[in-house]
């Protein structure tokens, strides 16, 4: 079908661009599904801009994965003449579409995109627009201006450095001076404005952050240079001034490593749909989620999400709560059962009656908790800010003492000494060492599939004393598991038979057992029949085989087993036993627990019952194991630890951990696959790297050591500079040499030492797993294989061929 659309429009080149383009779209698109896009309110929130003729909208398209995708999506105008232009941002997986409102509509575009397999993810979160590119652009602009001024001021100051032709220079001195002032003004007013404003804000709140001594240095440097040039008493330090600001901004850029495809701010809105199908009598109507009310009857189809707590009215519920708990096993629900929001229906369509509003549901009301409303950043006190308080007062004291000492003898010398101290002691080395060290660590950890939100997380990681784990999905595998068979032993021939039969089933349990059984599924089957929600049967070479729930396989047994994670097998009408999938702990856990417990107190919070207690007592204190914890309990537990002044690291995966992840000092989400959902957090850890957690934490602590050493180095430079400064003999030349020298040695030490630490901890050898192996395949269009292998900070193009 996709091919037909493409051929019709002569876009066949799509297939020749890449040997393995695209995944085939999962299922035919139901046309009514996008009806909500005709709703004016929804449209208004999706459109970035419109003026009646031209409109712009940006879509997030998760299935974008190769060079062919870019080509096809940028040729959308051939598929829909109403589209004027479409542009892809591959790293963000975004498509910006400009279209003519008279000729087409958002709904038509989305339907077209869905038809060719690029269905945009439109959820509640999309509606809340974010403006982050603006701040990124501003930083580039600031750097551009500062770099321009820095270069030109250096050039104009050159004669001064070499002190060539003094009489020649005299005629140019004032001209160069004026030019320098003109060039330095935009640096002060534009490039450095963020530092000055931040310092001002800090002072108004009666705190001294790192920007206060920086701004003091910047302002004194500029002020004194201005005075010297205008009074003709010297050449000023405009070059040092512009260079300082330029280097500081470069540090800021270096620190601003972001992972475009990863969003650390996702909450339930990020995966809740923006529209649901409401049933009014016999008619179905697609309405925006915001208009869903208690008492409404809604229809939830296969693979759709239950948006609010509801009671099952019709159909068989098979609810996959993996988003919520990390447990991949679907739960069976019957008519009359209560279904919590956040589950995903796997199977036929079901009808539900909503009993709670979306934001008041069991899970979603977690976000009404105050942990989500208060601003976290304000609680964090970084090393640089902590130090700068003492630093600032120390510097001002020295400057005053120097001024007082010289005052009786020479007033200009006193002023010189005073300003020179403030200039030379400007903590640029300290301000640079933090971004360069932490920025480097951030990148190294990113290469090891441990993705941090920002550099502040590293500082907090170094202070952690307690580590809290979630169990399901975090310590255990989400998908895999261990397969047991209980009952009469099966012959290998029978195993082949079972495997052959399971191949025809689409039930998630069947798929998993199929994967675990050895051998090939080579037996031909006749009379194959699947009863939805019950089981599957077939016949081969005279043998009748039935696999499924107890009631299906052994009708005499009657009562259904609760839990239903057992799969029964009967051959020729004789019950042979059942398969059971047990969750399996991730590898290397014993080692990592042993290593971690030497330094940290470990806790475990599980939403499940205490069945696994025995397996875990080896690693945890008995009272550090807590079972049957609700999302609110988890949050409260973290809180109680923090109330004792402890710094808590929480490691979890599902939405039920979202509160605890948010409340903890550092919340780490475990993700099997970065394309899957993970809740809001400070860091994302690839599941296979969990056994290296101790090393990552160790690395973070080492990072802070590097910063402290850097601080001492910069203090040494400061002492040399100060010895000149207090004597009032700081010449622009010494200043121009000393300041960059200290900055550069700090940068070199930061990056070098971080690299060396990474080498000694074995973090330079990257060990990649799981999603690297997934290669795009045309035959298998399952979710996992559409994976674009975006790993580490760098984008690697594994499946596509570039």
């Amino acid at each position: 079908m996709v091919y037909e659309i493409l051929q019709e429009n002569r876009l066949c080149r799509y297939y020749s661009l890449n040997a393995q383009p695209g995944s085939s779209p999962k299922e035919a698109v139901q046309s009514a599904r996008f009806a909500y896009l005709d709703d004016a309110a929804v449209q208004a929130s999706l459109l970035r801009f419109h003026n009646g003729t031209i409109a712009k909208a940006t879509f997030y398209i998760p299935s974008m994965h190769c060079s062919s995708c870019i080509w096809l999506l940028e040729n959308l105008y051939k598929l829909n003449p109403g589209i004027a232009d479409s542009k892809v941002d591959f790293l963000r997986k975004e498509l910006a579409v400009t279209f003519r409102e008279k000729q087409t509509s958002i709904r038509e575009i989305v339907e077209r995109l869905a038809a060719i397999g690029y269905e945009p993810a439109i959820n509640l979160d999309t509606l809340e627009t974010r403006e982050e590119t603006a701040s990124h652009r501003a930083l580039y602009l600031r750097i551009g201006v500062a770099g321009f001024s820095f270069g030109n001021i250096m050039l104009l100051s050159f004669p001064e450095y070499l002190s060539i032709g003094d009489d020649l220079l005299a005629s140019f001195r004032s001209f160069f001076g004026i030019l320098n002032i003109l060039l330095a003004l935009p640096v002060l007013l534009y490039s450095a404005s963020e530092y000055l404003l931040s310092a001002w804000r800090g002072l108004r709140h009666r705190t001294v952050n790192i920007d206060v001594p920086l701004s003091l240095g910047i302002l004194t440097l500029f002020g004194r240079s201005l005075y010297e040039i205008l009074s003709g008493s010297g050449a000023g330090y405009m070059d040092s001034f512009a260079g300082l600001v330029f280097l500081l901004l470069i540090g800021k850029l270096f620190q601003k490593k972001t992972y475009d495809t990863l969003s650390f701010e996702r909450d339930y809105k990020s995966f809740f749909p923006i529209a649901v199908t409401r049933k009014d009598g016999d008619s179905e109507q697609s309405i925006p989620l915001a208009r869903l009310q208690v008492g409404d009857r809604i229809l939830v189809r296969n693979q759709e999400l239950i948006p609010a707590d509801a009671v099952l009215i019709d159909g068989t519920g098979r609810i996959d709560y993996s988003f919520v708990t990390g447990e991949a096993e679907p739960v069976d629900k019957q008519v009359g059962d209560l279904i919590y929001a956040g589950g995903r229906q796997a199977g036929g369509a079901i009808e539900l009656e909503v009993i709670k509003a979306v934001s008041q549901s069991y899970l979603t009301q977690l976000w009404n908790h105050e942990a989500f409303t208060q601003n976290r950043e304000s609680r964090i006190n970084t090393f640089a800010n902590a130090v700068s308080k003492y630093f600032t007062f120390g510097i001002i004291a020295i400057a005053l003492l120097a001024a007082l000492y010289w005052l009786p003898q020479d007033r200009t010398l006193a002023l010189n000494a005073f300003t020179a101290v403030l200039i030379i002691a400007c903590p640029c080395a300290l301000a640079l060492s933090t971004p360069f060290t932490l920025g480097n660590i951030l990148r190294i950890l990113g290469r090891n599939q441990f993705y941090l939100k920002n550099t502040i997380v590293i500082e907090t990681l170094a202070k952690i004393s307690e580590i809290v784990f979630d169990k399901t999905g975090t310590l255990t595998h989400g998908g895999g598991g261990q397969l047991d068979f209980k009952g009469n032993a099966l012959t290998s021939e029978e195993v082949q038979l079972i495997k052959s039969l399971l191949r025809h089933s689409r039930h998630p349990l069947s798929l998993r057992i199929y994967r675990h059984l050895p051998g090939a599924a080579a037996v031909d089957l006749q009379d194959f029949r699947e009863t939805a929600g019950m089981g599957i049967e077939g016949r081969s070479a005279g043998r009748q085989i039935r696999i499924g729930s107890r009631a299906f396989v052994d009708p005499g047994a009657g009562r259904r087993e609760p839990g239903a994670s057992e799969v029964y097998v009967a051959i020729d009408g004789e019950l042979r036993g059942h398969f059971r999938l047990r969750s399996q702990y991730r590898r290397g856990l014993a080692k990592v627990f042993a290593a971690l417990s030497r330094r940290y107190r470990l806790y475990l919070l599980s939403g499940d019952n205490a069945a696994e207690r025995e397996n875990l007592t080896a690693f945890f204190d008995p009272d550090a194991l807590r079972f049957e914890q609700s999302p609110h309990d988890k949050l409260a537990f973290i809180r109680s630890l923090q109330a004792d002044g402890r710094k808590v690291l929480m490691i979890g995966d599902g939405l039920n951990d979202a509160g605890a992840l948010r409340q903890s000092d550092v919340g780490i989400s475990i993700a099997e696959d970065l394309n899957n959902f993970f809740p809001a957090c400070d860091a994302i850890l690839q599941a296979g790297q969990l056994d290296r957690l101790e090393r990552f934490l160790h690395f973070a602590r080492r990072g802070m050591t590097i910063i402290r050493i850097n601080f001492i180095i910069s203090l040494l430079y400061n002492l040399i500079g100060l010895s000149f400064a207090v004597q009032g003999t700081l010449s622009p030349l010494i200043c121009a040499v000393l300041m960059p020298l200290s900055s550069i040695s700090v940068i070199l030490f930061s990056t070098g030492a971080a690299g060396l630490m990474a080498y000694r901890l074995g973090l330079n050898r990257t060990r990649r797993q799981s999603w690297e192996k997934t290669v795009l395949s045309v035959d298998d269009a399952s979710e996992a294989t559409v994976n674009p292998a975006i790993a580490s900070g760098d984008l690697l193009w594994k499946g596509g061929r570039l």
Partner: protein
Amino acid sequence: MSAMFVLIIASLLIALGFLGAFLWAVKSGQYDDKYTPSVRILLDDEPEEKEPAASSKKPQSNYHTS
């Protein structure tokens, strides 16, 4: 020696021109996405074919941009 004044002013003006070009580049969004353009440049425009490619779903042409 007055030539120096002219030359310095001229050099500054040229430098300002480059600064302006950079500012324009940033503002027009060229620094927003530093990855996709590197791929886009390798994608050719569609040559106007008289006949769309024949019925085979995967033409054999081994066109890889590698």
